[in-house]
């Protein structure tokens, strides 16, 4: 019984320790990111890596999500003769929830894993130590550009995903379900509000920061050779995905709680 309680206590304490370490890493990263020197070339490189190269996967996710959403809404709503609500459901679901969450999860899988693997390899091959000996702060050189790029580029990706997702819903509704295309677009534009889009973009910014932070944190603290890098990569994706779901609720609560 005592050993069982000890295990619970140890797990709880190590959980608190991990939260403390991540918090300190975040504070240090943010404080150093706002101090010179800045690395615009590296920020631009990361923006291309996170934004441009994630476009195909995020775009594919968005278009098929929009299409499925229209189809499912139709099968469900037709039972109540409420098919006309399809444009409203599609645009609200995508802008508020599905766009940012799915884009965040896809980017976590693609970019978060790559960041953890890159920084993890740099750590185990002493490249991060080499940076320090060359009078370059690894937080400013490696972590800050990734955090800034994640914060900026995920909202851009989500905005594009919103448009592509709505287009997917439009395509299915007009081509397959026989909706009038002008009415569909009018309903979409009339129903969507600025707050729907803005809340989604704020979520995207938070998710982009989380993805980059988890990729950098786990990569930076990687140890134990190839196995350690593999573990860091897995942990980066898993923790980023869980945090995205948690913070999705938190931001939703902040925007829409009554």
């Amino acid at each position, binding site marked *: 019984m005592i050993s069982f309680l000890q295990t619970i206590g140890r797990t709880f304490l190590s959980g608190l320790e991990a939260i403390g370490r991540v918090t300190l890493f975040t504070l240090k990263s943010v404080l150093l990111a706002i101090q010179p020197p800045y690395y615009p070339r590296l920020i631009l490189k990361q923006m291309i890596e996170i934004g441009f190269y994630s476009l195909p996967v995020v775009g594919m996710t968005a278009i098929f999500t929009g299409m499925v959403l229209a189809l499912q809404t139709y099968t469900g709503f037709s039972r109540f003769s409420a098919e006309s609500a399809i444009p409203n459901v599609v645009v609200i679901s995508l802008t508020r929830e599905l766009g940012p969450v799915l884009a965040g999860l896809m980017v976590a899988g693609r970019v978060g894993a790559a960041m953890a693997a890159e920084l993890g390899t740099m750590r185990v*091959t002493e490249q991060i130590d*080499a940076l*320090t000996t*060359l*009078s*370059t702060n690894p937080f400013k*050189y490696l972590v800050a550009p990734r955090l800034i790029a994640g914060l900026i580029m995920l909202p851009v990706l989500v905005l594009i995903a919103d448009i592509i997702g709505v287009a997917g819903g439009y395509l299915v509704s007009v081509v397959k379900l026989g909706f009038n295309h002008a009415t569909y677009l009018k309903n979409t534009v009339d129903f969507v509000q600025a707050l729907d889009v803005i809340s989604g973009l704020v979520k995207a910014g938070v998710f982009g920061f989380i993805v980059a932070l988890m990729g950098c944190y786990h990569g930076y603290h990687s140890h134990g050779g190839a196995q350690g890098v593999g573990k860091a990569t897995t942990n980066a994706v898993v923790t980023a995905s869980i945090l995205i779901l948690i913070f999705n609720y938190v931001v939703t609560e902040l925007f829409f709680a009554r």
Partner: protein
Amino acid sequence: MSTDLKIKVRGLSKAFGRKVVLNNLDLDVPRGQSLVVIGGSGTGKSVLIKCILGLLTPDKGSIEIDGREMVGASSDQREDAMRKFGMLFQGSALFDSLPVWENVAFGLIEGRGMKRRAAKEIAVRKLGAVGLGPEVGALYPAELSGGMQKRVSLARAIATEPEMIFFDEPTTGLDPIMSQVINELISKCVNDLGATALTITHDMHSLREIGDQAAMIFEGKIVWAGPAGDVDHSGNGFVDQFVHGRAEGPIKMPIRPL
């Protein structure tokens, strides 16, 4: 006298969990001389050098560089000290995302704020000093052999013309001819720059080639220190066993029967 010392280490201790790696270690590195620290694997050589460079934080003890205490120093003070240092890592630790010339010029561009064109000229000159042609500058580290990577790493260590250079196992993993080439290059570069050097190695040939002074580390302590020429007749049991590679002696290898 402390004024003649580039580095003065007193009572340095470092443990990882229950494993004590450095145990109240004292070490003096005389200014303008090349000190070689020898010792077997796992005796604390790399941890010692990482503590001096500030890559690891010691549990207790003092490290003075040019008479200034470095344990507990601010990051700005540490970055200032780093500008005087060059470091050759055991695995070369070249940045694999950058071409060779940018690796060599990294400390000049990022650490000193030099223009890229001027830094490239210096990098090509330093590559020449370690026997590599300018065409190597355009290659990436993955395209180089182990010996060439070591030479590029040496070029990077001397690019900023540091006051002090650290060498971590400079000949490990190299064939005897390339080891000799690296040893000669290290001697030449250190002499040309008039730098202080601290090398850690278990290669006795390196010790004889590049050392003015020698020290032996065992179980986290310096067990002998003296002129490099005295290692063959030190009268110290640890040094004698190490130099002659005997299995019997005060250094016990815990080997269990099959």
